[in-house]
């Protein structure tokens, strides 16, 4: 064993507490970084890998066969890599044995080709009439298996012979080209790959080139691979900026605390350095001792942190990427490599400056050096404080940070970051909660009443719920009855239609509202609420994922009818596949359809049970739904992650304070012993040391709180953008004066909690031992 190793190992054992602090801090920080990097990598990698393997379509386009022909489409595509045209039909399975929504079925002779090479992961390709292959991600489960017979009235019975996966989502199912003709195709599908398609502008340019020369109105709709990717990764994308910020915070806190610990170790070890040099250690060896001393806990913490990051991040990432059929998730090697190599490198970098100081320190100076620094500023501050009316233990504590400004600055920085983390996490939690309440209200002020099954959808029978709802009164009479129930404040009738939006497999539900929409309908963010037939309002995610904007027109197909709808407004809701329309539109699309549900708002103070009973008495066929659980899995995960990360980084910051107090108390053993010898009580010693950190905590709180608010204002829009939600005022305006005041005090809490244990330990130092061991 080399002399350097022996000396370093001895130092590790002698400074066991600091060794543990370094290890824990590095472990927590590494775990946070691994989670953040792992999520970042996993968010894009499955889609990109599958897209590259399948030569996914950069653009899927739907054309009207009445206005263009196969030859025209092939000719327009020119030299561009393309597949198709594939005749495409829509199957409404709502009256089938198993409801699979509206299926987009394309006629393809084989799964290969230059674009959208399908992966058949179970069964085989459809080669004969009466056979169908369903689009399903590998490993996905469903109620249909091989051999299942899909029966739709008026159409041939189709037997499932295989499951394939199209990462582009070019269709829900495939049959032979001959078979699709029997399914009455209404669209011609073309799939394109462009030389450059990294941006929306490049995709648009490609679209322009492949549709040039086609008759006007031939193009019904398109679906860009960027939209598909955004949609596929949007839920996971919400986490990325959030976790990256926390990961970076963890990293910075770790570096600060390690720098603090190591520089403290050098200062506290002056005599040790002198002795090493006196024994014949070269300056380089002294530096090596200090670097090895820090590397031991850093490497151990890093390995444990990497393991913890892999273990804790995986369930979150697995949930998010299961849509790609990823059954066995493992982070890319670079994630763990960066953590395992980068973190110790950072720690050693932080240790380098004090280690170089140790290297340069002359032996004689090291051996005779005092243990505390006394700058002119520190002395002036102590003199001023001694004249104040503060209790002496408090005034002495307030002056303590000025004795070692460098250490105090590092500790202050850790506290600032800790408070910033708490402020940020609190803000994110409040934003998510407020947004969730807005888009998924718990409906505490209203009841939801079902009058029957949604039109066009099969009636779902649930034995536990008894008979399905079936209104006894007419739609008009039910609304009238509901308005007459004592306590009713507003009533809104709801109906819906399942539709297909032209371009790819884009199903959407059109919700039709009637009555007190302004009181009970979704909040309109831009534009206006639809006020006539042919108008719709949509969520911004609907626009983002389809590359649309207010004023654009979309083509939707409901049952056998195709119609064009103009987008007139953007509403706040989390479901990107919902379109909102006025009741007049329903009268055009499906005349005579009754409301299948009502929302009834009651006045404050109304007893929910009595109100519900009165509705049941008015129409026994109605069913009042129980109150909703307003939480979403994404919101729960983000809020949980906020809490966990706040606790981890808050604890890391408190560990920094803990370490500083340990160093201060060790350096000031003699002073503390003397103070006790002249009558300072253990409680006063605890107050002295806690005050020294509490002062830093107060400053840290006052600095960290506004910084946290500022980061929140930058981070939340990024999260909203990644999640394709609007950065509306609900998300941004969450901090209020009482909360800010409490957050500013978080620094004091972190500092005092970190200081308390070592301060109490110092308060019970043996005076006799301290004062007589000079």
């Amino acid at each position, binding site marked *: 064993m080399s002399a350097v190793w022996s000396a370093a190992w001895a130092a590790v054992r002698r400074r066991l507490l600091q060794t543990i602090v370094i290890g824990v801090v590095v472990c927590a920080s590494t775990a946070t970084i691994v989670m953040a990097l792992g999520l970042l990598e996993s968010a894009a990698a499955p889609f990109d890998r599958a897209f590259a393997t399948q030569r996914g379509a950069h653009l899927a386009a739907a054309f009207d066969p009445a206005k263009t022909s196969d030859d025209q489409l092939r000719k327009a595509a020119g030299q561009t890599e393309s597949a198709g045209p594939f005749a495409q039909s829509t199957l409404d399975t709502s009256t089938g044995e198993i409801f699979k929504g509206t299926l987009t079925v394309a006629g393809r002779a084989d799964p290969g080709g230059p674009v959208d090479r399908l992966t058949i992961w179970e069964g085989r390709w459809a080669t004969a009439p009466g056979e169908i292959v369903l689009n399903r991600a590998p490993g996905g489960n469903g109620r249909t298996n091989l051999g299942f017979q899909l029966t739709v009235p008026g159409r041939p019975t189709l037997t499932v012979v295989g499951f394939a996966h199209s990462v582009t989502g070019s269709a829900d199912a495939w049959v032979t080209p001959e078979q699709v003709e029997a399914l009455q195709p209404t669209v011609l599908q073309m799939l394109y790959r462009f030389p450059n398609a990294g941006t929306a502008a490049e995709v648009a340019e490609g679209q322009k080139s492949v549709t040039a020369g086609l008759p006007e109105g031939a193009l019904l709709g398109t679906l860009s691979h960027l939209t598909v990717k955004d949609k596929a990764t949007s839920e996971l994308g919400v986490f990325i900026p959030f976790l990256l910020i926390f990961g970076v915070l963890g990293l910075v806190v770790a570096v600060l605390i390690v720098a603090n610990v190591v520089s403290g170790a050098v200062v506290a070890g002056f005599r040790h350095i002198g002795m090493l040099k006196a024994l014949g250690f070269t300056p380089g060896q002294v530096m090596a001792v200090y670097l090895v001393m820090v590397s031991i806990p850093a490497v151990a913490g890093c390995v444990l942190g990497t393991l913890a990051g892999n273990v804790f991040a995986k369930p979150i990432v697995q949930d998010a990427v299961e849509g790609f059929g990823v059954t066995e998730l493992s982070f890319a090697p670079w994630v763990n490599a960066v953590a395992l190599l980068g973190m110790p490198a950072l720690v050693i970098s932080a240790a380098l400056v004090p280690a170089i100081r140790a290297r340069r320190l002359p032996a004689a100076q090291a051996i005779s050096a005092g243990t505390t620094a*006394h700058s002119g500023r520190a*002395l002036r501050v102590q003199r001023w404080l001694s*004249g104040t*009316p503060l209790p002496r233990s408090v005034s002495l504590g307030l002056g303590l940070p000025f004795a070692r400004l460098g250490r105090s600055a590092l500790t202050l920085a850790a506290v600032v970051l800790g408070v910033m983390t708490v402020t940020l996490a609190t803000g994110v939690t409040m934003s998510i909660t407020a947004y969730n309440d807005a888009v998924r209200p718990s409906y505490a002020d209203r009841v939801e009443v079902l009058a029957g099954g949604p039109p066009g959808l099969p009636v779902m029978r649930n034995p536990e719920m008894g008979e399905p709802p079936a209104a006894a009164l007419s739609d008009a009479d039910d609304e009238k009855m509901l308005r007459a129930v004592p306590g009713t404040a507003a009533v809104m009738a709801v109906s819906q239609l399942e539709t297909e939006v032209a371009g790819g497999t884009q199903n959407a539900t059109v919700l039709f509202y009637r009555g007190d929409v302004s009181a009970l309908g979704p909040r309109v963010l831009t534009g206006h609420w639809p006020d006539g037939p042919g108008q719709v309002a949509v969520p911004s995610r609907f626009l983002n994922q389809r590359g649309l904007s207010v004023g654009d027109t979309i083509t939707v197909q409901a049952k056998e009818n195709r119609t064009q709808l103009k987008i007139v407004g953007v509403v706040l809701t989390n479901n990107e596949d919902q379109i909102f329309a006025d009741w007049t539109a329903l009268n055009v699309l499906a005349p005579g359809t009754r409301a299948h549900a009502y929302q009834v708002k009651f006045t404050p103070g109304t007893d929910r049970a009595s109100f519900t009973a009165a509705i049941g008495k008015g129409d026994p066929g109605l069913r009042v739904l129980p109150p909703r659980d307003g939480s979403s899995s994404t919101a729960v995960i983000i809020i949980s992650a906020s809490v966990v990360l706040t606790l981890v980084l808050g604890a890391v910051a408190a560990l920094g304070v803990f370490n500083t107090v340990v160093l201060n108390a060790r350096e000031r053993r003699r*002073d503390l012993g003397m*103070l*006790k010898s002249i*009558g300072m*009580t253990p409680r006063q010693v605890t107050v002295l040391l806690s005050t020294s950190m509490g002062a830093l905590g107060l400053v840290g709180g006052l600095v960290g709180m506004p910084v946290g608010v500022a980061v929140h204002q930058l981070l939340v829009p990024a999260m909203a953008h990644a999640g394709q939600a609007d950065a509306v005022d609900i998300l941004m305006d969450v901090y209020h004066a009482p909360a800010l005041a409490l957050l500013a005090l978080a620094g004091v809490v972190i500092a005092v909690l970190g200081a308390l244990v070592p301060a109490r330990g110092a308060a019970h130092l043996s005076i006799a031992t301290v004062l007589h061991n000079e």
Partner: protein
Amino acid sequence: MNNDVVVAITDLRKEYADSVALNGVSLTVRAGEAVAVMGPSGSGKSTLLNMIAGLDRPTSGSVVVHGTDLGSLDETGLALFRRRGIGMIFQFFNLLDDLSALDNVALAAQLTGTPASQARKRALELFGELGISNRRNIYPARLSGGERQRVAVARALMNRPALLLADEPTGALDSRSGEQVMDLLLDLNQIGQTLLLVTHDERLATRCASRVVEVVDGRIAREQSLERTS
């Protein structure tokens, strides 16, 4: 001499993990006495001083100072006892390096709740009595050894303790400074300050003490009353 008992030690025993520091020590110090405790290194004399100052607790036996049984006090009680009941002088002065000489002395009074202005006033009086008024704003690092010990004495006297304890008060001083400190202690005792010294220095003992107690192997080997040399 006043016959009031200031310190009454009975059958004191202090054990450490692998040794016995004090073994059945009994000692009485009366008000106005100056007692020097002497003995070789490791004999137990510093341990005895720690017990009287309430800095350490005995394994058995009792220490009563001014009628207070120190064994009955908890840590806070002992701190309050040290604050009011005793003053201590150490070999290495134990001044706070980041407080001026004046603030070091005033600190002892401030701990009792005395306002800073009053504490400084009392400290200035002591600086005058000890002849170091011109050093009041100097920090310990820039004081000579003798001056530091005088500041330490002033701090010890700040709360007018009934008992002044000194642990090798001249041990870290040159001979001239040592002489000055000896004179100071003698003067204090002559105006009625009860004094208990622990020292190796026979000259200090014979000059300042009225009685010498010799401790060997944790026991009192000899007690001797002295005629002071000055």
